[in-house]
């Protein structure tokens, strides 16, 4: 049986709200949650801005290679995270372009943000593209006919497609925050600096501390639920 004979950290006394003793203390777990949220939310926020812009540009413009770009986006949805991690690690290493340009990003949160950005972007872009191209042409025509500029028409379209775009953002966030392969490679799972919930779960599970790993898993799921709920609430606001 996996883990038999390995001491666990099950709480026998008053151990705090999570009923488990953490080897790195509650400050440590708070730091892990902070790093997870900081990295994933930053990556998804940047990716959302980028993805919506790309979705609108690709959705409403005809240009040579448009089909290829769409195929690329769809292919990107299935990118293996370990491969993304490897590519980002190379890019930020001393041999890579960013390393040679003088940036010191190996085993940093910024490198983790880069890898999560790469993973989340095709998901958010692909779903947003489907959402904006699904908006009735008549809506865009109406905005244009009333004197709207290109930006006004784009904003109306984004607003009409907001539920679909929100679905894309949630899917991208799910991809980013639950990701372990690439953040492990580019972040290095350094305690207090680049350790996230997923890399901590992986570490604790490997060390046989299943209760701890499970509690961290519950925290992760609760965070995802909370963020999804908040975003859905935001998207569901009645438009005046």
């Amino acid at each position, binding site marked *: 049986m996996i883990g038999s004979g390995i001491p666990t950290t099950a709480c026998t006394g008053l151990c705090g709200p999570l009923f488990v003793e953490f080897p790195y203390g509650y400050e440590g777990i708070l730091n892990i949650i902070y790093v997870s949220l900081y990295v994933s939310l930053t990556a998804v926020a940047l990716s959302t801005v980028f993805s919506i812009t790309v979705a609108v540009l690709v959705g409403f413009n005809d240009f040579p290679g448009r089909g290829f770009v769409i195929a690329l986006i769809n292919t990107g949805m299935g990118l293996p995270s370990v491969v993304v991690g490897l590519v980002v690690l190379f890019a930020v290493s001393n041999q890579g372009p960013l390393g040679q340009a003088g940036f010191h990003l190996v085993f940093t949160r910024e490198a983790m943000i880069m890898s999560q950005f790469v993973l989340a972007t095709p998901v958010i872009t692909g779903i947003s593209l489907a959402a904006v191209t699904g908006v009735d042409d008549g*809506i865009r*025509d*109406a*905005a*244009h006919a*009333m*004197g709207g500029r290109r930006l006004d028409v784009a904003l109306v379209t984004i607003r*009409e497609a907001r539920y679909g775009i929100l679905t894309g953002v949630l899917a991208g966030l799910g991809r980013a925050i639950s990701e372990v392969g690439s953040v492990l490679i580019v972040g290095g799972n350094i305690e207090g600096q680049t350790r996230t919930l997923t890399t901590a779960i992986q570490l604790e599970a490997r060390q046989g501390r299943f209760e701890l790993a499970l509690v961290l898993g519950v925290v992760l799921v609760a965070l995802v639920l909370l963020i999804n709920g908040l975003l859905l609430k935001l998207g569901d606001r009645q*438009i*005046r």
Partner: protein
Amino acid sequence: MKGGVTNQAVTVADGLALSGVYHGFDDTDVLTDVSLAVGREEVLAIIGPSGTGKTTLLGLLSLFDDPDEGTVEFGGEDVWSLSERERLNVRRQIGMVFQEPHLFDGSVRRNVRYPLDIRRPWADRIRNWLPRFGHRSANPVVTEQLELVGLDDAASRHVSSLSGGEAQRVAFARALSYDPEFLLLDEPTSDLDPRNTAVIEDAIETARSRGVGVVIATHDMHQAERVADRTAVMLDGSIIEHGPTQQVFDDPTDRRARKFIDGELIY
């Protein structure tokens, strides 16, 4: 001139006009040598069978497309020779109502206010997006336009709660909210019951009395007789008859126009 009738009205100085226009899609000609103009404070009806080019003609008048040949003129100037900014100013003096209402998701108020919002400086618009500073109170312009179409008590309703006729009336109020000089109507009442049709026709009359020049494309000849000062008959992408409405209906000069008006030309 090839085909079509020579159109004296194309010289309307402060009007919106097409002059010698040819236009098509995918190597198919839709409009052939069309010349037509509407002045302020008049209603011009364009009648003709479905698929004859009425919507394409309105698309050119509303500056959605530039014509393959010929000119679109506003106040005597070729609109497509203007800069983009100048053309935007022209577009903002033309309103349009489509066959479908095409309302934005949100309240009736938001829809009628939208054209006013996009004319405001960006700083104002961004401030308006912030809930704390948002304008939730009644806007007198919005109220006035909704009164015009008999929906002054509907400002807070979500568009999904409107009937088809009410939605089209909101679309009409929205197109008039920014006080355009010209209003283009593409089969605006084709899906409406007689009551809603009457409301829209009254609103057309009110718009005309305010100085708006109205172009209405319709396949309802009775509607053209009711609302239009002048009527143009379109067939196969050309204007085949054009003149004062009563003259066109009572004594058309073109044989095909006579057949169409008499209901013998069925498409």
